[in-house]
């Protein structure tokens, strides 16, 4: 009889704990999304890719609106004038030499935009809970920060990675590390957050991180924000095809 009571107690506590963890995971992800989403934002940054062929460096300017729309313009000599526009769930490329706009669809989105970053990697947006079922699977210390470890399983076909494991700081709800998996369960990419800075209204912002492709040994891409302006006034025309020319 005592054993039965004990068993019921264990099952009940487990159910409560699972439920609590599940809610907590959603809450953590929601807060993480909120923290990284701005009405508008302007930034200038550098992307550095390293592989067995050496190092390549690109600089860019970026404007974003909400969690979906953005415009990136490369400013380094080799790629000057090349633009990437994300608006209305569509992605467009503009090459000044060709003076032509190329819409990106399907398999083309899997191509490398820069180093280990594919076009799909930059189009996920931040409404994570619409696309993933999340589950708290534990805690872990990452670079000295106590983090939630949350497993995200895709529920939408609009995302490239069927599974992600994210590690989010318990204190600040800032992403510290992310792992991207293939359908087979193989680890494809790891994102390490290197630097987090506080801006304007006290919000935290990731300003440097490294994405490493786990299938291409020695290959990694570092993204660094050099200048950041939060909630600047942006013209709506900026996020239109006209702005590409």
């Amino acid at each position, binding site marked *: 009889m005592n054993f039965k009571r004990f068993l019921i107690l264990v099952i009940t506590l487990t159910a409560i704990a699972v439920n609590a963890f599940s809610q907590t995971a959603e809450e953590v992800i929601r807060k993480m999304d909120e923290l990284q989403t701005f009405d508008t934002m302007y930034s200038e940054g550098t992307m550095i890719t390293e592989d*067995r062929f050496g190092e390549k460096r690109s600089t860019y300017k970026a404007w974003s609106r909400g969690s979906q729309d953005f415009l990136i313009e490369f400013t380094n000599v080799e790629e000057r004038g090349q633009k990437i526009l994300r608006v209305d769930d569509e992605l467009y490329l503009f090459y000044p030499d060709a003076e032509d706009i190329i819409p990106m*669809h*399907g*398999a*083309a989105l*899997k191509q490398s935009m820069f180093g280990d970053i594919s076009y799909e990697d930059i189009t996920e947006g931040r409404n994570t809970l619409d696309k993933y079922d999340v589950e708290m699977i534990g805690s872990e210390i990452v670079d000295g920060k106590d983090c939630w470890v949350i497993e995200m399983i*895709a529920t939408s*076909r*609009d*995302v*490239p*990675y*069927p599974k992600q494991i994210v590690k989010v700081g318990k204190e600040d709800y800032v992403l510290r590390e992310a792992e*991207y*998996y*293939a*359908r*087979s369960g*193989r680890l*494809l990419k790891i994102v390490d957050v290197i630097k987090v800075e506080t801006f304007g209204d006290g919000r935290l912002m990731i300003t440097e991180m490294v994405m490493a492709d786990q*299938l*291409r*040994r*020695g290959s990694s891409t570092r993204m660094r924000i050099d200048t950041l302006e939060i909630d600047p006034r942006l013209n709506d025309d900026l996020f239109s095809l006209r702005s590409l020319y």
Partner: protein
Amino acid sequence: MGRLRVQRRQYHSRGKIQLLIGERRVRWRTVLKGSGNYEKKWVVGLAFKNLLRYKRRTLITASAIAFGLTMYIWIDSILTGAAEESVRNLRWYETADAMAAGTGYMDDRDSLPLGKSFAWEKLASDLEAAGMDVTPRITFGADMVFFRDPYPEDGNVPARIIAIDPIRDSTVFRLRDTLGEGRWLLEGEDGALIGRWFAEDIGASVAAPIIAVTETRDGYFQTIDLEIVGILDSPNPVINREGFYVSLDTADMYLEMDREVTSLYITWPGAELGINRSDSLVDLVEEAGLEYSPWDVQAADYVAVMAAEYSGSGTVIFLILIIAAVGISNTMLMAVYERSREIGMMRALGMADRKIRHMFLLESAGIGAVGSFIGILVGALVNIPLVKYGLDYSAIMRDSNFGYRMTGIFYGSWHWQGYLYALILGIGLAVLVAAVSTRRILRLDIPSSLRFN
């Protein structure tokens, strides 16, 4: 007739030509009043005699024609052989005789869309019941990732993977016959077959592991761990350069295709002999809600390239013929001009310009015929080793195939139509050049012709 024979004998003697023409004039007038057939025979006979009379000129001119036609036959043989082998290799290894695919697949096939897949079993049964052989395939894109040891270095390379049914595939394609090393795929295993040049380029060998990074039909990233089980030595360079094959079961599982495929390839007995089953096929395929594509529609790029190459080759042949024509025209011009006094004499004695022109044209046709026969004979002799051993261009073809589906050895072909064209070209060209030269000399008045140097 007895008198004519005497005159002909006299005609062989160059010193008696004026007398002969004088006698001929008498006879000519007789002819004009008499039989037209005799007149024709006489002109033909004279033209033939002139051929023999100027043996060296005849031989030189005929040699120019023969050289041009030998070159023509040689190039025509290689081009025809290359085209025939390319079509054969396309149908045996890439396109089969026809293909059924989802609506819009052909328009979008460069992006290798898995979303346009279809259930194939029912259509396959219907087609097999109609006497055709069919095999399903899934074609998808992947990034092939490999690591140092056993490979020479780490790397990745984009590839187009074709998933095949290891058993059915051999009923339609001849891929299995090209297995050069290792073994054929087994059903359900995560093995891979790779083209020889592809394997050499990345340093792959049998039993080497390789990872395909691709996406499922729903668009999720997917990886497939494969082991290379065989290397293909195909006569089709596309297979050697790009070919990468896995089993249909593997693709079905990893790409989450739910037993659907991207294409169903079809062949039928006698298709290579031109037996057309398109009508009944199209009905069956369209009833299944799919699109029918014969091999030449699938290989539209190849057909376009071949049309362009044929046009380019035609230009080369044309240039060769121009060179030959220059030689012919030179000798024919000389032949006509050096006999301008003879022509003037014939005209003075009453022979009509039309007859003179007729005689010269017959003479040049004779030269053309001699040159053509020599050219065809030499061309045929040259073609024997070309057909048997071919020309080895593999060093060039490895990196670029110019559209041809051949690994490098260009074999000749017995293209009898080409020989007929050569004969017509040889005679036609000689007659054309002679017509121009004769016209020029006949435009002179008779005294000018007689004084012509």
